[in-house]
């Protein structure tokens, strides 16, 4: 009798195992993705035949893992979390599967055009946006008022420098300005690339010649080092996005120019001590008529399927769920509207409930709409705060280390930019861009 029972349960188990697909999903340990992981049960309730196996890693480690995996056709992941940097490069390498099975109710036309374009190659979508961001100036309304200043509609770097000086009070531990200093192409270079563009400089000119010794880069980096040295927190060269987020949340920063996604965290009473004192303005400009009015940043963490995965259909089912309108509603019902992943769908910004709950909604949408990462005159590459070429990761990180050295004072701005230029020319020559 016992044996019979055993055999029956084994058979049943085998049947279930056959019908089940297990998806391995590689993702970043950012709070929005961790929230998605927490909602696994909601997905499996609707799709009992698909099991989810999460691999959640720190951004840099995840990048290395997924890049190595996809380049060597390792097949460890069925769904990968990648950004707007990888999509154009990887789709050209034919490493990604086109997303054509997202279902009838997915409504791809609802995706914000700038984001959709950034994730498409030749009109085909290769990754679905989970959340998207541009850049904003976050500032403390109370401190700015106390300094006797008002934030202009289009702030300039000159104004920011003046405000930073007046807001700094080292006795009470308030620093006028917090910016990224941690070296990395996605850390300090994202900010500096954006800042250099607001002074009219790019990474490369039309002939792929690196621009690090141009006037724009010199002005940007000199001002950056100057501001952080005088009015920034100690140890700024080690602060990345997360460190600045916690500094701002503790009320230690007067202003912070960074990814717009930060806005929902600093206005959340659970994560911030200054939730009702934060104002939002566009990214500052360094010159008259600066490119994109200072919104020189466009990024979307997105979900994609490696072309080599044998579970295409189940993977697209999951992606469709995680980037749908229904998912936004699910998060809103559990965590409140202010905490839904921002920046991906037009309908979200037309939703009065969201606009009411998220004081930063309007500023975020305006910045995303202004950010145009496409190839343009004098800019032969896709991207704003990065250049979407394979060489950029290594190059950007090496340059980022030079910039961090300039910030910590172990080298001068001129020497750091000269070293960056030499390194860049060397890499781009080997890559065959510079003839």
């Amino acid at each position, binding site marked *: 009798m016992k044996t019979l029972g055993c055999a029956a349960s084994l058979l049943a188990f085998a049947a279930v195992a056959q019908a089940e697909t297990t998806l391995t999903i590689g993702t970043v340990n950012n709070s929005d993705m961790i929230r998605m992981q927490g909602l696994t049960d909601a997905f499996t309730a609707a799709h009992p035949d698909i099991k989810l196996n999460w691999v959640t890693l720190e951004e840099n480690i995840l990048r290395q893992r997924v890049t190595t995996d996809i380049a060597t056709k390792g097949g460890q992941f069925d769904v990968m979390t990648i950004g707007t940097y990888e999509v154009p490069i990887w789709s050209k390498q034919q490493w990604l599967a086109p997303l054509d099975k997202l279902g009838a109710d997915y409504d791809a036309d609802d995706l914000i055009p700038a984001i959709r374009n950034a994730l498409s190659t030749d009109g085909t979508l290769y990754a679905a946006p989970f959340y998207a961001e541009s850049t904003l100036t976050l500032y403390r309304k109370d401190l700015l008022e106390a300094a006797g200043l008002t934030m202009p509609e289009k702030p300039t770097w000159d104004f920011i420098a003046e405000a930073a000086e007046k807001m700094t009070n080292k006795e009470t531990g308030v620093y006028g300005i917090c910016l990224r200093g941690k*070296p990395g192409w996605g850390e300090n270079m994202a900010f500096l690339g954006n800042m250099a563009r607001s002074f009219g400089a790019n990474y490369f000119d039309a002939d792929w010649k690196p621009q690090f010794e141009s006037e724009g880069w010199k002005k940007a980096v000199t001002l950056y080092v100057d501001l952080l040295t005088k009015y920034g927190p100690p*140890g700024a060269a080690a602060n990345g996005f997360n460190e600045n987020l916690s500094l701002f949340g503790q009320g230690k920063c007067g202003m912070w120019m960074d990814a717009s996604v930060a806005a929902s965290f600093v206005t959340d009473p659970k994560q911030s001590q200054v939730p009702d004192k934060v104002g939002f303005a566009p990214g500052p400009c360094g010159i008259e008529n600066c490119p994109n009015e200072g919104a020189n940043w466009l990024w979307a963490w997105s979900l994609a399927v490696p072309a080599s995965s044998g579970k295409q259909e189940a993977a697209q089912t999951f992606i469709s769920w995680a980037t749908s309108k229904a998912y936004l509603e699910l998060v809103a019902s559990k965590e409140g509207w202010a905490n839904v992943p921002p920046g991906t769908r037009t309908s979200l910004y037309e939703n009065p409930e969201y606009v009411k709950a998220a004081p930063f909604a309007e500023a975020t949408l305006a910045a995303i709409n202004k950010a145009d990462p496409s190839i343009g005159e004098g800019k032969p590459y896709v991207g704003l705060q990065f250049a979407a070429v394979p060489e950029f*990761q*290594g190059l950007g990180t090496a340059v980022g280390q030079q910039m961090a050295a300039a910030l910590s004072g172990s080298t001068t701005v001129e020497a750091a930019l000269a070293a960056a230029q030499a390194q860049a020319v060397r890499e781009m020559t080997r890559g065959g861009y510079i003839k």
Partner: protein
Amino acid sequence: MATTQTKSVARLMMTPSVIVLFIWMIVPLFLTLYFSTLRYGFYNPETPFVGFENYTYFLTDPRFLSAFQNTLLLVFGVLCITIIGGILIALLLDQEVFGQTIVRLLVIAPFFVMPTVAALVWKNMMMNPVYGVIGQMLNAVGIGSVDWLTNLPLTSIIIIVAWQWLPFSVLILLTALQSLSQDQKEAAEMDGAGALSIFFYITLPHMKRAITVVILIQTIFLLSVYAEIAVTTGGGEASSNLPFLIASIISLEGDVGTASAGGIVAVIVANIVAFLLIRVVGKNLEG
């Protein structure tokens, strides 16, 4: 007394493991050599033969020289701290003190902490300029805190790695100390030798072999320090060593060819260092 017969049986029994170990080493080495002659990157599907181009590209990289320097400084710095500190601590632990076992356990404890964990603890708890223990202490005495990892990156990493290796060195040296016969010391004392003379003429020569062993074993491991750098500074000219530079060439640039060439260069460097060490300090192992 081994007979010819037992010797040949022993050889026969060792053969399988020797062959496996040999293959274990030779296959990766051969593949690395082969890859280092190809233009082989993640992003280019073709892998043409380019001869020594990768080697020249790696050796002319401005980051190579600093990485090479840092590698040697790291090994040398940690060796200095662990040998000198190790001798002093071993001398202390050799005394009869109350709670000897507990003290010895505490001294050896860092050896059981994983490198990543140790580096994180040092980075956040000890060396943070704002709320780190060292910073607080320096502030208390009025010197002012130091932003260790930003301004003294290599020094900080040397301190972290040395802290992890000190117990190893203490253990080996303490064992050597304990085998020193008391008669010799007593005889020297009877002849009127002071504590310093006893240390320099009796204790130190007795520890020579142990010191050699510590240097050789540590050097092998110190040439390939990686985790401590990755966790604390994340590289950069001031603190990357050769292994870290090579790893970042693979992970950031996806350039397998250049990284393989770098790997071969690192193997050659390691062999030269080991050869010199054996020539200089290895003499003590004979006789």
